[in-house]
């Protein structure tokens, strides 16, 4: 019953509401919507469960793999210096692929081309661990504006079109909740503005670490739309648009969210 009333309320808000971009000074990351206990959990590296993956990633960074027996650290050295800011500027344009790729794809590219090892599966423990370790090095750094790279502009626009497109059986667009209703509740949960500041992130609901793509699939399933396959270019476009929306906000990976 409550759920039904919730939907009705949400629907009442939606009727006639045009998606409006959130002004830059009114943007709030999911962290600001957290309760004090979840914030404390994220802030302390000794209680943030995402740090378990970061430590695994640190071990993988120093372990040789593949036919060439290369180590990440062999080329990239100390991640604290070489990987600083990387998560703040991915997805980035990849000249070889002719399209933007996200951080996970970039890590797998290195793994296949440089190490001669098989690509790690999406959402596998190893890939999440390495991504979390790399993303951790950018903590506190502001997200870069992807449109600074001319080549990325069409992909950011494609992402925006996807963000504003109604889809699924509930016929909802991302923008309707995350631009217009972000301070309201959906059932018991606060609707966030959907800024990708903390990925890969530990969701208490998942009881594990997950990528931005997993989170996007969550929302797609929520509106009963068909999901794209993991690694699909649509997710990368969407991620680019989300990074554009979140430009300037600090990276907080690995974040903890309910």
């Amino acid at each position, binding site marked *: 019953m409550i759920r039904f009333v919730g939907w009705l309320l949400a629907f009442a808000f939606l009727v006639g509401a045009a998606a409006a971009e959130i002004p830059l000074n009114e943007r709030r990351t999911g962290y600001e919507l957290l309760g004090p206990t979840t914030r404390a959990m994220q802030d302390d590296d*000794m209680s943030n469960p995402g740090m378990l993956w970061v430590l695994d990633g640190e071990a993988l960074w120093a372990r040789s793999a593949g036919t060439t027996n290369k180590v990440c650290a062999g080329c990239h050295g100390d991640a604290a210096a070489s990987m600083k800011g990387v998560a703040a500027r991915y997805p980035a344009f990849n000249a070889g692929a002719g399209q933007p790729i996200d951080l996970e794809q970039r890590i797998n590219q290195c793994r296949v081309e440089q190490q001669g090892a098989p690509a790690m599966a999406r959402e596998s423990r190893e890939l999440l661990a390495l991504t979390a370790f790399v993303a951790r090095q950018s903590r506190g750094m502001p997200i870069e504006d992807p449109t600074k790279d001319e080549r990325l502009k069409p992909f950011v626009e494609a992402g925006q079109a996807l963000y504003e497109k109604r889809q699924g059986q509930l016929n909802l667009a991302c923008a309707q909740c995350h631009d217009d209703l972000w301070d309201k509740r959906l059932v018991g949960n606060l609707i966030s503005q959907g800024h990708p500041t903390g990925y890969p992130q530990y969701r208490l609901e998942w009881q594990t670490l997950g990528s931005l793509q997993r989170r996007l699939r969550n929302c797609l399933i929520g509106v009963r739309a068909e999901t794209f396959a993991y690694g699909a270019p649509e997710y990368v476009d969407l991620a680019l648009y989300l990074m554009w929306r979140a430009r300037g906000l600090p990276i907080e990976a690995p974040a903890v969210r309910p």
Partner: protein
Amino acid sequence: MSRALISVPPRAKKGQIIEIKTLIQHVMETGFRPNSVGVLIPRDIISRFRCTYNGSEIFACEMFPAMAANPFLVFHTVATESGTLEFAWTGDNGFSVKESVQIRVE
């Protein structure tokens, strides 16, 4: 191997109440969930945690399938003397992790 994160203040005053935080990596599979072909995934949980301070037990607990993955436990004790805090997690499939941390009491 399973990673554990332990937070104990490295120094404390005699008689001071200190907070100890432990976080360990574990799936805590309940044993009630079916897999993609409908077969139950066997239970795999940590069933017991024990913490000793210079050999005497200061905290212990049993865990059950309802516990979340990566159990996070916070408890308190009184810093009485310098020495070692030992932590042990044991569970299904021979799971056993032991860690120790030094504390200096002044």
